[in-house]
């Protein structure tokens, strides 16, 4: 029964460790990478406590105290570093600091990803004339609109939608 409990706790610690590792590999914000590290450390602590109970002595608990100490030190140093890095470049992206690593590695170019529709707030005015957002008004606007009536007709319902 006790072995089953220990095994379950070891699997649980492994789950926490795997979650932390996946987070560390995928996240790109520095703070969340450090949080992933802390998650891995908590998984290790669970393992240590499980073995401490399994072997009926305090060695695992003492090692967990040491892990806790090192985690606190790491958090303090890491946050001081994060704050100083953020003051320099005003971003939390780790890719910004790629030039600190090997320069011979090929750089991974990324396409900026848009988050759905961009929010554009239009002023609610009475629609009149052409929509300036759809087409820039040329200098000879008067002559064009007088000569070709279709441009006015084509823009009329588009202007009406913004009302």
């Amino acid at each position: 029964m006790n072995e089953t409990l220990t095994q379950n706790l070891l699997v649980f610690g492994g789950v926490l460790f795997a979650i932390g590792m996946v987070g560390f590999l995928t996240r790109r914000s520095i703070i969340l990478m450090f949080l992933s590290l802390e998650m891995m450390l908590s998984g290790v602590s669970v393992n240590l406590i499980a073995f401490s109970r399994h072997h009926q002595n305090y060695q695992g608990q003492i090692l967990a105290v040491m892990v806790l100490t090192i985690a606190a030190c790491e958090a303090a140093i890491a946050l001081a570093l994060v704050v100083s890095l953020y003051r320099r470049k005003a971003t939390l992206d780790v890719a910004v600091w790629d030039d600190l690593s090997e320069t011979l590695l090929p750089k991974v170019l990324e396409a900026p990803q848009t988050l759905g529709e961009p929010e554009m707030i239009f002023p609610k005015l009475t629609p009149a004339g052409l929509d300036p957002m759809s087409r820039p008004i040329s200098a000879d606007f008067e002559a064009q609109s007088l000569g070709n009536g279709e441009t006015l007709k084509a823009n009329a319902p588009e202007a009406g939608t913004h009302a």
Partner: protein
Amino acid sequence: MNFINSLISNAAFLAQAVTDVPDPVVPDPVVPASAVSVGAWTSSMLLPIVLGAVGYLLIQHGVVKSRALFAAGVVSIVIAIGVAMGFTPGTFESYVLMLFCAIATGGGVGFLTAREPVYAALGFATAVLSVCGVLFMQSALFIAAATMIVYAGATIIIFLFVLMFAQQAELRTYDVQLNNPFVAATIGAILLATIAMCVTGDKAMLPVRADTTRAMSEASLPDELSSDAGREAAKKMDAIDPNLRYVPKLTAGLGRSMYTDYLLAVELAGTVLLVATIGAIALAQRTTETQA
């Protein structure tokens, strides 16, 4: 000459005394017959791991809305808990332990899949507090309290503070577009499957054996075993029920062991803390000086 001879004989006597140190009195380990072959590895344990990896990829690629998958995860966790409670007869304690484990895993999943960093930090706080509950159920009271104070009290608050200091209102590209989710999920699934296979495999767990390879003070032994009467009582209890183990559950014993057997490690940890404090102050001050 006499002096040297006496010195040599003394040294030899000392060496013999060192090598002949009687082993710390440890009762013979009582290994129950059914201790080893519990919880064999079956390939069906791969199913939740693969499902978890696939769900993580689905969320990261935006195929599935995270709320639907969150609901599905909650339902599956509830079903899994029900199945586990149905198949493994346990006590109320084990059910509470499983609940803590489930909440911690859920917090970890929320930490992985949240897009907003603040929500990720809150998921991490949930996971760590539940881990504290697990440690509490394992009678590691001091570790649970210290973890709660250090992680949830200090680390999470400082992390949230830095997040709100550095985070803009809208999501940035580096919050949304992650590094190679497929590769990371594959590596994580393989790692987790390997850990589960090694841990739950047949004869994976060694039987309980007290450590006799190094001399330790009696403080690191369980409290019941540090006296003759306690040892006799322990043997009697072993004769009654071999599964009854002597769990180190007193925080006083932990403190005694820490300040007798591991005094050097404690001093080193204190030194590391001091160095980290000085380093953090120096790092924070240097930037302000260069900017001013």
